[in-house]
């Protein structure tokens, strides 16, 4: 390699800060009060140092690799990961009810984590292809196909959280030309969905009717908009009325549970309330008891998480001093609920500082992505930023009790080898591509 590595040091520094801070929090959440040997490899915080070491090695390898390798082998990597997911689905090695693992010695590999990396590569490769644009039915269908294949395979493994992450590629497609209306539609439908659970359906339809009449009256001279108003209203009403059915029939009990808990709804009350409106809920009565059994767990997680964060107040209890953390009251605190430790031990000041650092890193990734000269790098950059952002948004929203409990890790922070390694690969592959962009420029002049 002749070229100097023009790596974006700001991102690297932010990355290092977050990884070290993450390890500190895992240590805090996982060590008991008495034994506190930092490199106790039988404990998670000890193992996390191993993962950090492995990640560092992989990062080093990536930086040494010729940038063309990623473009060249992206479909290959994609194929391998899809193959792994299929093998997993066939053999079925499930743990924690959801995630599927490959066992390599004593280490467990979680292919769904690497599936995001592979999908990002494949999508970048496709869109970066000569004269390919995100236009035309065929291209759009191929893009969605690339995304849906691993998503569906993950979903079939019952790993809803990880599958949902693939939705973050919508953001990438938006950057590549997908109409913003699709995003607005998505937000609109999500809003309607939440309102339908909170309020009786007829209230929402009534409100929408008033809005639609007002809209049509306001644009009464423009026929197209009148039609639009009617169509949107009709479709919304259908959506609302079908939602209850979808919710009751198509979602699994634990998924209904998580959603209801997030919206502060009591499951029993919800069903009695809804049963008055629609007869289909009466049939479900049988399921209610089963749901109740698991209800405590979800509401418990969220409540403990809130208590833990709330305990931090302005300045927090200080490193390794969180009572809630130390008492291990929040389930999965070293993995999915790692933010609780930050909330409790570093308080409002520390938590917001952390959010700032994290969002700064994500923003920097998007900024770097935008400045790419070739589409492959840009799409891969936006994928990197979107995936990390999606994880960040869902994970912290969940810890703060504003989003449903969806078990996905906080990148670079949560305990877990597959997660840390795959996100590090994602980030540094992009940084390698970005560094190459600078080389390209220097070659030009």
């Amino acid at each position: 390699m002749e070229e100097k590595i023009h790596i974006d040091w700001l991102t690297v520094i932010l990355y290092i800060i977050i990884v070290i801070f993450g390890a500190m929090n895992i240590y805090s959440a996982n060590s008991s009060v008495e034994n506190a040997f930092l490199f106790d490899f039988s404990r998670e915080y000890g193992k996390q140092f191993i993962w950090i070491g492995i990640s560092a090695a992989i990062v080093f390898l990536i930086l040494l690799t010729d940038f063309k390798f990623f473009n060249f082998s992206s479909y290959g990597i994609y194929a391998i990961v899809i193959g792994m997911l299929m093998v997993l689905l066939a053999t079925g090695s499930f743990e924690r009810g959801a995630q599927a693992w490959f066992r390599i010695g004593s280490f467990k590999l979680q292919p769904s984590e690497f599936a995001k990396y592979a999908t990002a590569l494949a999508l970048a490769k496709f869109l970066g292809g000569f004269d390919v644009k995100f236009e035309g039915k065929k291209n759009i269908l191929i893009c969605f196909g690339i995304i849906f294949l691993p998503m569906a395979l993950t979903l079939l493994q019952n790993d809803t959280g990880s599958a949902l992450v693939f939705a973050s590629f919508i953001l990438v497609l938006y950057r590549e030309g997908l109409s913003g209306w699709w995003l607005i539609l998505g937000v609109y439908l999500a809003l309607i969905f939440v309102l339908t659970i909170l309020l009786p359906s007829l209230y929402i339809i009534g409100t929408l009717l008033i809005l639609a009449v007002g809209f049509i009256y306001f644009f009464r001279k423009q026929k197209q908009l009148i039609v639009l108003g009617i169509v949107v209203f009709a479709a919304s009403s259908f959506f609302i009325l079908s939602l209850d059915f979808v919710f009751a029939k198509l979602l699994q009990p634990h998924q209904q549970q998580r959603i209801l808990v997030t919206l502060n709804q009591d499951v029993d009350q919800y069903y009695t309330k809804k049963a008055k409106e629609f007869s289909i809920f009466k049939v479900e009565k049988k399921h209610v008891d089963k749901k109740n059994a698991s209800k405590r767990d979800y509401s418990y997680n969220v409540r403990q998480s809130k208590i833990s964060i709330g305990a931090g107040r302005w300045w927090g209890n200080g490193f390794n001093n969180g009572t809630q953390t130390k008492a291990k009251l929040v389930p999965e605190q070293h993995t999915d609920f790692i933010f609780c430790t930050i909330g409790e031990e570093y308080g409002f000041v520390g938590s917001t500082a952390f959010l700032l650092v994290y969002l700064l890193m994500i923003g920097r990734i998007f900024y770097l992505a935008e400045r790419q000269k070739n589409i492959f790098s840009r799409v891969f950059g936006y994928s990197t930023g979107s995936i990390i952002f999606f994880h960040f948004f869902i994970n912290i929203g969940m810890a703060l009790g504003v989003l449903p409990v969806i078990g996905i890790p906080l990148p670079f922070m949560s305990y877990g080898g597959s997660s840390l390694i795959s996100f590090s690969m994602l980030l540094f592959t992009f940084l390698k591509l970005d560094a190459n962009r600078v080389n390209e420029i220097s070659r030009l002049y």
Partner: protein
Amino acid sequence: MEKSGRLYVFIGVLVLVGVIFTVRLFFLQIVDTSNYYKAQSYGSNEIVIHPSRGTIVDRNGKLMVFNDAIYDLMVVPEKAKNFDKAYLCRELGIDTAEFNKRLKKASRYNIKEPAVIYKSLSKELYTRMQEILYQFPAFYIETKIDRRYNINGAAHLLGYMGEVSEKQLKEDKYYRPGDIKGISGIEKAYEIYLRGKKGRKVVLVDKFSKQQGSFAGGKFDSLPIPGQNIVSAIDMDLQQFGEELLKNKIGSIVAIEPATGEVLAIVNSPNYDPNLLVGQQRDKNFNSLLLDPRKPLFNRALKSPYPPGSTFKTVQALIGLNEGVLHSYTKYPCRGGYHMGSITVGCHPHASPLELERSIAQSCNAYYCNVYRSIIDNPKYSSVQDGYTQWTKYLNSFSLGMKTGIDLPEESKGIVKQSQYFEKIFGKNWRSSNVISLSIGQGEVGLTPLQMANVSATIANRGFYYTPHVVRSIGDNNFVPAEFKVKHRTMVAPEFFDTVVAGMAKVTQPGGTAWRCSIEGIDICGKTGTAQNPHGDHHSLFIAFAPRDNPKIAICVVVENGGAGAAYAAPIACLMIERYLATDKTQPSKKPDMLKRMLEANLAGAAIYQLPGKDPAPAAGTKDTTAKKKPAPAALPVKKK
């Protein structure tokens, strides 16, 4: 690229999410403090370490009250969910209904606060619980302190401990449900000194209630501070001797050291064994004591006002002397009593006329009717009402009709009526003849044994008293509350006391009403009293102090239905004085017959069944034989069924 502007949409979304999360964090961490307080109770378990309670020793350093550890099974009601109730109940040996009742009671105050669910586990149960409690995270064992007594008596004085009430829980945050505190006697009055300060150990617990070690390196832990030991003014030997003497009688004895106001003994009969009100049996025994018709829980010495009878004559003489209406040479005749219109106050046969000293020694009623009338009918007051009011002020200066301020709870102020009281009965212009019985301590006057003993101490001191107190000093530094050292002077000038003292000295000399009780070698100054009792035999009263100069002990003895003062109260008082002044307590009494007679007398059965009669009490000997045939009431409530 025309889509490059969309970067700003991405950045905008990041900013928006950042703002939403920050606002949410602000709400959770700063605005909503409930999470913070919940955290205090969830993550850590506070283990209370109960301090040892202060011990109580008598004035000679003899241990009276000490501690023993008891083990209570505690529950945190909030966490008591999803456990094998049937299994736990089986191990505890209680049925589920009872268990539920207790759990409900424990939840009543605050479901987060630990409360007792099973008091004083037995040794076996304690061991068993330690083996199985890991399965019941909401339950744990707390070591507490319970009282043990070295003395089978002084129960009213020492007081008992009991579970803290809900009202007290709200008033004093120191206590938690199931804690025990002093409910009466010294235990209550000196609770804040005796209880010490609880220590605490904050341990981290995980969600399985498994301890994860000390919280924050023990930063919030504190060691218990033991309660302060108390030196009581009580003489344990004298106290127990008094209890022996009052056995099978109803009454009380109060003995005070005049020079200090220290209470040497407070004896009540009937009383109870303080050992009954400890541990597991406390509630059961307390209830049977409460229901006992003999009222063993009632502290007569402090709460029961008796007509002082002739003992009151000492006070009347002092007031008369100070008012200038009576002199040591004043003589009044007595012709079988005092006659005034239709009213006659009878008197026993004696030489007449008598001067002041002999009027006390022989206890002439007529003499004091004259004295009392001269006090309240004194022309220097515009009316008898004003004269009476002035008289009550004198009484108040002896702390009669007022609380003495003794350092024990629940003291009665006795009965001294305001002049308005008589207006309601006799009309606005009532006359001294209407209240003539007050001159000999009958009628509308009532003094507690403590007040009478204090009068005796005041006379012994020739005109002042210290607030009676049962505690001598508190703690290792021998702290003495300042109010114990305040000298209270009566309205009677000191020079008038000598005549009355001289009269009281003659009481135990030949010709005096209690001459039979005299004890060789001790100058006992006393005054007998016989209080009329509408419900039965007269009450036998005696106040005394000894020696005449530099008195060491002042005493009041009341024996209900004991007849004349000289029959029971005076002998008991003299024996008490002899016992107290004796340097060698093993030396036999100089009055062995009198001692035997007093110890064997049984008036308790008679007191309840005997009908009221006019006749003075028959000779003690005859009465004893009749009384002894009746079954004595059960002494221990526990044995009652």
